[in-house]
């Protein structure tokens, strides 16, 4: 019997993947080097909107080392000038007539080395006729606005209109409501900024007629299917390997033109092709996130009970609708914007609009527009509290969905699985000393100092998703796991999701360790190679644990059921006489008579009962019955420097509830990272364009990511309310802090100025923006 500890659920197991990363031994796409490999670089548009009059490739082609220059005209002949997006739109791979956003791909150069390729990009001569760009989505909707997409049948910049909830009932409540508040909120365009940019290495092996693509993909299987559909190459002849990934955050779900061009070049030239974006290309042309112009209203009673919510949003999608939402949800899960609050009705409408900006928007560390939804409701609750002169904590307690209301049917149709919102907020308020902070704030205000306390009590919706509702390009959003236990009691687990830093190799091993009673270090987790891993939709939207984690648990339980038969055979008892307890099958009433999984595994190959198949393995494709709904209560305390407008986050406490916790250390790490990624848009990040549509934030000098210096000390705590429908009770956590943190910070800043009549400030709250407000309110130093 093994004496090695199992270390299943709840153990802070050190991440198995870290030793190779810490030693610099990870394998990222740019580490893949093949003999004879050529380098691809991309010519990009200096205009946001222009007609291409002429492309002259002769000077570039004449340069020593330049192998090929590929244009849209050539791709058009191959039927590849356009590609489908995941949202049933189409997107230019390379343009044949016009460019529709700044830094759009215009042509591609292939050369024998990276440096020659970069020089050749400058030698490709492109003559443009600049056209008027459409940058403001509201102006894009005006009659006579220049058309971003004349290729479409519909001669308008309007893409789609989408609604959820009960309009009639909502309007009726608003008409009769005692109190109505309304607010415009803009959630600006931001970028995921994964440390590793996008890129691929493509190799077409003529000998075995197989295309292999190493690619920074969050969804390698889905990408294989897309590649097969676009290229006509049979799916079994395509292998996508997603090696170590330096962050995804939603930005590695879409297929980018560079992937298609590199694949075309590899097939055409018969040589391996490497294409790796540089940082500016990544910032300028890859999918953005957010960019929602929101008008929100709440109807309430005079004593602060919210009755209804009404939201209309204009969504700027750039030049192509290349979001990565489930098919039926063009605005993602934005309709979860009623949040943690019980109300009678809600109506949400979203209009998607084309502009001359890069396409998107992806779900940046957010389960499909939930960041936008949470920001809306968490700000609006504070706006209402301000209108009524109520404390932001008090108004939340008054409106929370009560614990006994779960499962709770929301006014926009979601069924919240479980929650205990008052307990979580109370825990946060007690821990931070809320009443004491309010006293301190009053004293400081009397001295002219600006201090604010902000609360966010968000509800997430993750784990897409049930097959009746969720698909991407028709593929249902199940996920998968395949477990094989070896004769000596170690095991390999292959999963359909793809880690980008979340720690799958550790947490999924812990799930199997827990379910099978095998030590965690004896379990190897593999993923990311479409030739070996089972089909899955990938990792984003906090879906790995809710969906693939469930698949892993269910597959392990299938193995355990077979193991029961083998144990019964070994112990010469009926399977019904056995119970699984303390990581072994034990004879009921005689717990000293038992067989461990290690013993059973050996017997599965050496001494299994007649009539039973040998081996010990199982597969599960898990179709979740519902989404999971993690939640949390965050409290933020800020001080404002009246001489510079700088916001200093003095204290931040995050109390998260993500249901059952598999690895508390990884959960805490996820929360720290997520909070920092929530701090960023609240105070720093924004993609900015000038009047010509030129991006002004194409480097990390101007696109501001907070560093450790700007990041406050995060305090974390938890409550545990398991999901009733997930096999482990787990809910997923990666995105909660990213969506929960921004409104907590903004609410704190607004709270610091609320006595001056400030009710809302759009993010990012930069020092310059805040200082202007201090000047207007007469409190600037």
């Amino acid at each position, binding site marked *: 019997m093994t004496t090695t500890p199992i270390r299943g659920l709840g153990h802070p197991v050190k991440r198995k993947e870290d030793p190779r990363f810490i030693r610099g031994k990870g394998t990222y796409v740019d580490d893949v080097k093949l003999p004879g490999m050529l380098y691809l670089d991309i010519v990009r548009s200096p205009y946001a909107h222009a007609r291409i009059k002429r492309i002259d490739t002769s000077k570039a082609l004449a340069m020593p080392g330049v192998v090929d220059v590929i244009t849209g005209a050539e791709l058009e002949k191959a039927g590849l000038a356009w590609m489908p997006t995941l949202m049933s739109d189409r997107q230019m791979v390379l343009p044949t007539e016009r460019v529709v956003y700044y830094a759009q791909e215009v042509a591609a150069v292939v050369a024998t080395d990276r440096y020659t390729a970069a020089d050749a990009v400058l030698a490709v001569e492109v003559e443009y006729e600049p056209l008027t760009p459409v940058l403001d989505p509201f102006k894009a909707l005006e009659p006579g606005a220049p058309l971003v997409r004349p290729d479409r049948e519909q001669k308008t910049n309007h893409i789609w209109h989408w609604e959820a909830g009960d309009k009639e009932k909502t309007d009726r409540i608003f008409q009769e409501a005692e109190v109505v508040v309304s607010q415009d909120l803009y959630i600006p365009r931001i970028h995921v900024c994964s440390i590793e940019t996008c890129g691929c290495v493509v190799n077409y092996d003529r000998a075995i007629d197989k295309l292999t693509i190493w690619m920074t993909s969050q969804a390698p299987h889905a990408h294989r299917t897309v590649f097969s559909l676009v290229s006509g190459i049979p799916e079994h002849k395509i292998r996508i390997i997603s090696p170590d990934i330096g962050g995804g955050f939603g930005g590695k779900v879409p297929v980018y033109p560079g992937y298609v061009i590199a694949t075309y070049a590899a097939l055409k030239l018969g040589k391996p092709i490497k294409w790796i974006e540089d940082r500016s290309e990544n910032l300028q042309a890859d999918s953005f996130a957010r960019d929602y112009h929101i008008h929100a209203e709440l109807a309430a009673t005079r004593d602060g009970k919210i009755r209804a919510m009404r939201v209309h949003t204009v969504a700027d999608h750039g030049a192509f609708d290349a979001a990565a939402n489930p098919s039926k949800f063009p605005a993602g899960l934005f309709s979860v914007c009623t949040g943690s609050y019980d109300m009678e009705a809600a109506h949400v409408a979203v209009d998607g609009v084309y502009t001359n900006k890069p396409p998107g928007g992806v779900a940046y560390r957010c389960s499909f527009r939930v960041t936008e939804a949470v920001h809306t409701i968490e700000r609006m609750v504070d706006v209402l509290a301000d209108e009524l002169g109520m404390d932001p904590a008090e108004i939340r307690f008054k409106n929370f969905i009560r614990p006994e209301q779960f499962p709770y049917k929301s006014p926009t149709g979601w069924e919240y699985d479980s929650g205990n919102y008052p307990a979580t907020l109370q825990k946060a308020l007690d821990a931070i000393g809320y009443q004491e902070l309010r006293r301190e704030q009053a004293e400081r205000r009397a001295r002219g100092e600006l201090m604010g306390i902000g609360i966010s009590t968000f509800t997430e919706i993750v784990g897409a998703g049930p097959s009746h509702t969720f698909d991407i390009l028709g593929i249902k959003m199940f996920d998968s796991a395949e477990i094989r236990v070896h004769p000596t009691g170690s095991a390999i687990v292959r999963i359909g999701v793809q880690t980008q830093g979340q720690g799958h190799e550790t947490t999924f091993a812990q799930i199997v360790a827990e379910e099978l009673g095998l030590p965690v270090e004896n379990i190897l987790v593999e993923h990311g190679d479409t030739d070996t891993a089972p089909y899955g939709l990938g990792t984003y939207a906090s879906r790995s644990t809710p969906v693939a984690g469930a698949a892993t648990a269910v597959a392990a339980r299938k193995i355990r059921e077979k193991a029961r038969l083998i144990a019964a055979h070994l112990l010469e008892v009926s399977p019904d006489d056995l119970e699984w307890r303390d990581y072994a099958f034990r004879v009921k009433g005689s717990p000293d008579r038992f067989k461990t999984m290690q013993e059973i595994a050996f017997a599965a190959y050496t001494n299994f009962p007649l009539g039973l198949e040998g081996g010990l393995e199982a597969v599960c494709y898990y179709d979740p019955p519902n989404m999971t709904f993690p939640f949390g209560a965050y409290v933020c305390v800020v001080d404002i420097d009246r*001489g*510079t407008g700088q916001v200093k986050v003095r204290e931040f406490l995050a109390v998260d509830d993500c249901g059952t916790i598999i690895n508390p250390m990884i959960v805490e790490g996820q929360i720290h990272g997520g909070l920092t990624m929530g701090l960023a848009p609240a105070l720093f990040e924004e993609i900015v364009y000038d009047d010509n549509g030129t991006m002004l934030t194409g480097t990390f000098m101007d696109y501001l*990511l*907070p560093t450790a210096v700007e990041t406050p000390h995060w305090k974390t705590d938890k409550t545990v309310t398991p999901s009733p429908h997930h096999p482990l009770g787990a809910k997923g956590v990666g995105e909660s802090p990213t969506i929960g943190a921004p409104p907590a910070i903004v609410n704190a800043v607004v709270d610091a100025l609320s006595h001056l009549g400030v009710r809302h400030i759009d993010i990012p709250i930069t*020092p*310059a923006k805040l200082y202007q407000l201090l000047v207007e309110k007469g409190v600037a130093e």
Partner: protein
Amino acid sequence: MIPGPFSYRRATSIEEAIALLQQYGGDAKVLSGGQSLIPMMKFRLAEPAVIVDINRVPGLDTIEERNGLLSIGGLVRETTLERSPLIRQRYPIIADTAEVIADPLVRNLATVGGNLAHGDPANDHPATMLALRAEVVARGPSGERVISIDDFFVDTFTTALAPDEILTEIRVPAPPPRSGGAYMKFERKVGDYAVAAAAAFLALDEARKIVRAGIGLTNVSYKPLRAEAAENALLGQAPSDELFRAAAELAAQAADPTSDLRGPAEYKRAVARTMTFRALQKALSRAQAA
């Protein structure tokens, strides 16, 4: 992020470096720390045909006090400066400045000489050196000359250095009794250039009146700025918050910033005022402790 083609020449003596600069003229750029030059080359904002690397030139990396002057070699790295006990004890304003330049990785390579010779009004040392009334020593084909810091900065990215001259040394007057200086920088995030920053240096007489005042401003004009009117307003006065506020206002008026992503011009002027005021307060507390 790939630079254009260039050739690389490594000089092993100052004479060799100057000869190379003479040979290539305007096509050549001197490489010291390279922390501004190389990023500019990667963005192809600078495309010098020849790089003359002076990193192996001996004798340019010392920090010492002699004859009532602090001498900083042109190749002294920011990290060396910020860790130097002499600098930390006797010239804390210079340590303040070095500490807020970019990030530790940059400071390990970046040099004080490069920070000045680049002529970027966003760089941090120029304001401090203006406040300290430093001198710059340049070596060229006809030998050495000493340039007053007030004459050194000519325009954006342009200094008084001739194309075949190399900045070899910075000289700073040793601090008089009852003096102190401070550098206060406001940046959007660590590693950023200043929204605005101010260097202030004060010396008091025995009656605790201000006898010397230096104020330099970062990134609020086309070149590093010395706020002379503000300095003059301080001279002969007893230090007070009220006086410092008036001086900071004069410094802000001298600023002529441009609007960009760091904020509108008016905001930068306000930050220059706040930073000047706070730098003066800190300079005073150091002068009083001295």
